């Protein structure tokens, strides 16, 4: 299947080249795919979206959407893309109905003509259709914004942080809606800073400091986690983190909710020669004996430091663990580049 969205070596800087927002980004999105851009605030997600929706020009690199070039054929793209900007907040002083009607008309269509596409979402906000958009809850606003973005049956839907500032229930509902839209054949690119939402996408791109660290399915990214991961907690969690961090055998350890996630250096099964960002990480298959040995080792460190209420267990790594691992490597390469530049 041909790629609906194709991005090649995109570079975008702001302030006359001083701020590098997008750094040689390349990725492809297949037709009908639900693709996620995962990264913290300021990672460059919005810039990529704006380049794809033709409202921003890249410094270099190319991007095509539905076969059209984002610079040359911007008019064609503007007819085919549905876009929900990150800070999109609709017209506060217009009612839901008026907002919808306005956007439908601007996109050269009517609400009725596309009812089948937006019905599920529209039905939820219909009881409030005479309420002004400014008086809606965050979740409701997002649903309305999604309706507005869908109103002209776009081939590609670009959603820039649609769930930021929305409550957990509405976020869940929102992702259910995206799934339904995907089933109707719409290609969706969605960005989010929330790692837990990543696994709802078919494929994700992890992005940091304008650079893509990895593009794969969430499952593959998790499986590629090179080491065993352990979760630990004790009565004094902060001191425990410090103790683990200061131990020479600890590779990485960071606070994660009420636990500390740790992996150890002394891991015989891992080949350490691969800290480049984009290459495929090897799948690890640790012997149970190794796990036991490492657990024992961690317990011993905690006990030596007089911790009480110690709990340490082996866990499955999540997207966030992978993200943090890739992030530290990304930082390392950036620093390496900086030192060579000097």
């Amino acid at each position, binding site marked *: 299947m041909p790629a609906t969205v194709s991005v090649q070596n995109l570079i975008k800087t702001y302030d006359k080249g001083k701020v590098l927002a997008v750094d040689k980004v390349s990725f492809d999105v297949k037709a009908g795919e639900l693709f996620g851009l995962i990264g913290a605030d300021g990672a460059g997600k919005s810039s990529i979206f704006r380049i794809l929706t033709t409202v921003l020009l890249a410094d270099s690199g190319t991007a095509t959407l539905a076969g059209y070039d984002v610079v040359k054929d911007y008019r064609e793209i503007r007819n085919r893309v549905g876009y929900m900007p990150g800070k999109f907040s609709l017209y*506060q002083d217009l009612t839901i109905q*008026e907002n919808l009607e306005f956007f439908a008309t601007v996109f050269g269509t009517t609400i009725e003509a596309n009812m089948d596409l937006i019905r599920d979402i529209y039905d939820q906000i219909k009881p409030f259709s005479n309420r002004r958009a400014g008086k809606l809850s965050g979740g409701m606003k997002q649903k309305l914004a999604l309706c507005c973005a869908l109103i002209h049956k776009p081939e590609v839907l670009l959603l820039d942080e649609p769930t930021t500032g929305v409550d957990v229930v509405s976020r869940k509902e929102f992702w259910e809606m995206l799934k339904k839209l995907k089933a109707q054949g719409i290609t969706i690119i969605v960005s989010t800073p929330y790692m837990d939402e990543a696994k709802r996408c078919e494929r994700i791109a992890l992005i940091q400091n304008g650079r893509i660290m990895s593009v794969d399915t969430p499952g593959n990214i998790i499986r590629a986690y090179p080491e065993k991961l352990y979760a630990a907690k004790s009565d004094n969690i902060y001191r425990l983190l410090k103790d683990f961090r200061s131990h020479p055998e600890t590779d990485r350890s960071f606070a994660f909710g009420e636990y500390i996630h740790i992996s150890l250096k002394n891991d015989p099964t891992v080949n350490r020669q691969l800290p480049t960002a984009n290459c495929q990480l090897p799948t690890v298959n640790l012997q149970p004996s190794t796990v036991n040995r490492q657990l024992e080792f961690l317990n011993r460190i905690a006990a030596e430091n007089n911790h009480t209420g110690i709990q340490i267990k082996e866990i499955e790594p999540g997207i966030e663990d992978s993200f943090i691992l890739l992030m530290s490597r990304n930082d390392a390469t950036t620093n390496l580049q900086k030192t060579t530049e000097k």
Partner: protein
Amino acid sequence: MKELLVFIKKEFKHVFRDPRTLLIMFGLPVAQIVLFGFALTSEVKNIDILIADNSKDMISTQITDKIKASRYFIIQEKNIGGTDIDRAFKRGGVQSVLIFPANFSNDLSHEGKAQVQIIADGTDPNTAKTIVNYLTAIIGAYQQEKFPTASLRYQILTEPRMLYNEEDNGSMNFIPGVMALILMLVCTALTSVSIVKEKELGTMEILLVSPFKPVMVLVSKAVPYFILSLINFTLILLLSVFLLHIDIKGSILLLYMESALFILTCLSLGLMISNATNAQQTALLISMMGMMLPTIIFTGFIFPLENMPWVLRTISNIVPSKWYFLIIKSVMLKGLGLQYVWKETLILMVMTAVLLTIAIKKFKIRLQ
């Protein structure tokens, strides 16, 4: 076309649902007209005068009645003299005193001449002069009427006329100025803010991504404010005719055409400002503060341009409201036709064309 109509309808909704916009749009003109028409008038009215009639004869009473009949004076009658007058001025209850000496009419009939004394408060020279002029005129008129053939055989009578403003209506000069000021501020500010608001809300991003032509965004923003400004103009006209009793001498149609042209100039300026800014605050600051002072100073309705040094007079030429003010004064107050204001009209047209071209050229079809 349908898109454009819906867009324009939407703009009207924005205006009518926002009390602040409505207030600026329609409250400002009313407030300005009332202020300039009543409060800030240069006319001297309601003068407190004390008439000390020591003669109490027929002529002094008749003159007092004449003064009473004029609408400029508030009269107290009391026989005072010397130090009491000084005290009356110091207390501030009196702006001038008129004293008829004893035997006023006797002197007049026997000696053929009599004196009245007018005392005015010289701390405000302009007002004092005006009061003295008023009283001299009233007494002079009485004399003419009473003794037409009396006094000198040869005399030169000055016969002043205030052309185009026979009643000496002080609001007349202000109205065209206020019109220029209001249209300049309201049009420019509201137009620029309405576009910048879309940028702030993020809706501009959507509009840009939509198939709607970017330039049409400008058109749909300009049309509602054009219509509203014409309504505004009508409101000012009605207020000046019915509240300030201004007589519109020229053609109403020409007045509307010229105003429409000036509104277009202001709209283009507003669109230009909105292209250059990204925050409502900035847009408002530029269009309100940045425009207010030049408009007030360089339009010529408060400070006469003729008195300014040539540098400032040259600068005033690039202020559109100056030309509009000249046009409106000629058409509305003097009743002149297009043949007398074509030069000013042409200048406004060129300004509009230039501003509009810049606004459209600079309108970004992308962000940044």
